[in-house]
């Protein structure tokens, strides 16, 4: 495929600034026509997705060496580019960007119908694009302070979107709660950044890790910073015990936003893995030493994962509100990712265990990130479609939707099978990788993971039975409008591709991400 050289060179920054440009063109264009913002938003997010594709091609061709883009640098300007703002894109960053690209495109198309009757659509699309900017920026930047800036951009934009349905007081309550927690975590993140800067005088994450390595490993201050970072990023990802605000925010957000919320929350996981591996798990090939013995950190992440899995699913079982139920399942699924990659962190300094099962566990955890974004995004979209037709989210008030909302029913079934890890679906492939490798790490945890999977299936069977089966209601609702169906179809199509070719997906998408995390320790290949 021929892509002009300009786009090849500038793809990393174009991914971020296209939605930013769109976000601020939207209100200007919204003055001219009330329907224009939706087209502008879709156009710019699609453009951004195309740039992600160009970038992905470039990253995979030179994996595991990251693509580096230095802002504002003349070639040969003589100033050390490390002291400039850099975008550093590797396999993991580009994987997260792909997730955000697919989900945001689906969500924006879905929103065309979903928010058609609300006023202030230009603000909605502005904030939606800003959320995408925040997530893209977080995963593409190589500079820890920019990570903070984009973290706050995505939090602020998401809060605005959670409070978008102004007729409900509950949405303000959820938005206040989420904003409060993310602001407090932002302050802690700033302290951690200050600690790094005070010790090493740089903000580039790669350079921090090398400076830490030449200083002889992590100091006490670095360990304090690590504690802050783990708290902050697991709060962003919505794992137990920092999950207080997530169910409220997920369930109060409008339908399309809940989907994008899942993808945006996973940037917290990205940042957690990035700091654990790139900064603290940095391997010095000359001395053979790691910056920090990550065994304890790995166990902490594993325990967070197990708690999230178990508490999330048990809370989900008792919910009556369909979106709240899915929100607790989102917490539970986050646990699998933490578990998988946490095992990788724990055995990082043990090459034998790492090659035996650590790499597979990481593969499973990272594969689960993209799978979860797709099927949980799809499930939230179907729940939004049900809400759009019935104006209720209470499961007791729905029955027999399958008679008329046929496409929505089929899509829900696909999503439910995928989240429960039923064999042909993509959720099965990633969970199998996690079970097999975690069983070698600690059998009890693997058994808990399987139990949680069974409970997830039970919970979704209950939802399917009570909402979609049963006698035909008196006023059977129509199926969702076309644009919403298109949005869901995008996600379904990707899920089916992932289910049919899991091996290919792992090889092409996931392995570069794992290699990027383990670089340079495992430079040769997985």
């Amino acid at each position, binding site marked *: 495929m021929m892509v002009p050289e300009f786009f090849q060179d500038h793809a990393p920054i174009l991914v971020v600034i296209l939605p930013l440009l769109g976000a601020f063109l939207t209100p200007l264009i919204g*003055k001219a026509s009330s329907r224009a913002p939706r087209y502008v938003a879709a156009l710019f997010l699609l453009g951004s997705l195309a740039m992600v594709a160009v970038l992905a091609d470039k990253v995979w061709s030179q994996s595991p060496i990251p693509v580096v883009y230095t802002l504002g640098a*003349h070639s040969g300007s003589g100033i050390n580019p490390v002291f400039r703002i850099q975008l550093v894109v590797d396999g993991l960053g580009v994987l997260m960007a792909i997730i955000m690209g697919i989900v945001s495109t689906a969500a924006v198309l879905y929103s065309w119908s979903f928010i058609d009757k609300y006023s202030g659509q230009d603000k909605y699309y502005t904030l939606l694009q800003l959320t995408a900017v925040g997530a893209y920026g977080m995963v593409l930047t190589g500079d820890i302070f920019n990570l903070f800036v984009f973290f706050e951009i995505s939090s602020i934009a998401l809060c605005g979107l959670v409070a978008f349905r102004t007729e409900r007081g509950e949405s303000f309550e959820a938005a206040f709660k989420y904003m409060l927690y993310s602001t407090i975590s932002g302050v802690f993140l700033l302290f951690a950044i200050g600690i790094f800067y005070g010790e090493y005088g740089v903000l580039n994450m790669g350079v921090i890790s090398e400076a830490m390595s030449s200083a002889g490993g992590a100091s006490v201050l670095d360990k304090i910073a690590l504690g802050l970072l783990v708290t902050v990023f697991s709060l962003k990802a919505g794992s137990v015990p920092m999950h207080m605000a997530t169910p409220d925010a997920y369930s109060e957000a409008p339908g399309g936003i809940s989907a994008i919320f899942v993808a945006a929350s996973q940037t917290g996981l990205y940042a957690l893995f990035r700091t654990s591996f790139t900064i603290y798990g940095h391997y010095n090939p000359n001395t053979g030493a790691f910056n920090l013995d990550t065994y304890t950190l790995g166990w902490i992440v594993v325990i967070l994962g197990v708690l999230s899995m178990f508490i999330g699913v048990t809370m989900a079982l008792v919910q009556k509100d369909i979106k709240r139920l899915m929100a607790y399942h989102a917490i539970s699924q986050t646990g699998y990712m933490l578990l998988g990659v946490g095992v990788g962190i724990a055995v990082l300094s043990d090459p034998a265990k790492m090659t035996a099962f650590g790499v597979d566990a990481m593969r499973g955890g990272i594969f689960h990130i993209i799978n979860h974004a797709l099927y949980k995004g799809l499930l939230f979209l179907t729940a939004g479609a049900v809400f759009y037709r019935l104006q209720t989210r209470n499961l007791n008030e729905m029955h027999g939707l399958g008679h008329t909302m046929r496409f929505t029913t089929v899509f829900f079934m696909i999503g439910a099978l995928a989240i429960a890890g039923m064999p042909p679906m993509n959720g099965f492939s990633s969970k199998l990788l996690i079970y097999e490798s975690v069983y070698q790490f600690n059998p009890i945890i693997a058994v808990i993971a399987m139990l949680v999977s069974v409970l997830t299936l039970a919970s979704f069977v209950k939802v399917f039975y009570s909402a979609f089966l049963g006698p035909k209601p008196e006023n059977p609702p129509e199926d969702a409008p076309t644009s919403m169906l298109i949005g869901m179809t995008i996600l379904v199509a990707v899920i089916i591709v992932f289910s049919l070719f899991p091996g290919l997906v792992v090889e092409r998408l996931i392995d570069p991400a794992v290699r990027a995390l383990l670089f340079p320790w495992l430079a040769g290949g997985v």
Partner: protein
Amino acid sequence: MMRPMSKIVRSMGGVLYPLIAVFGGYLILHGHLTPGGGFQGGAVAASAVALVVVAYGGTLYKKGVLSTVESFGLLLFLGAGLIGMSAAFFANTLANAGGLFGDAVSFGVTDAGLNTGGTVPLMNIAVGCEVIGGLGLIILALSKAAFTREVD
């Protein structure tokens, strides 16, 4: 919308408002030479907006105008970044190139001129517009909320 305050406040506001606004503009335009810059100057100018809203009520400002100023500021900022795209985003290709803001500067301790800095003054102006617009909108929105007190 908020009621205007007493005559004393209005008179003092009328005297102080232009002074604060001019100081804000000074900070924006001298941002590349002295302490200050787009954000600081914009914040100072926005506090002039706050003064007017408190003293005279919010009717003097139109929301549409402020939001246009804000969008214009951001587009100008991104435009200033995109000028440098021949090298990299945000590259300062206008510096030392002649024209407006393009006067050459020598490295080291110099008597810096106002027309130096390349895209930096442009970005300061852009950020200034952005901040005046954004903070002004925040003040207008909250002052409107503050004086409609009914509870549903």
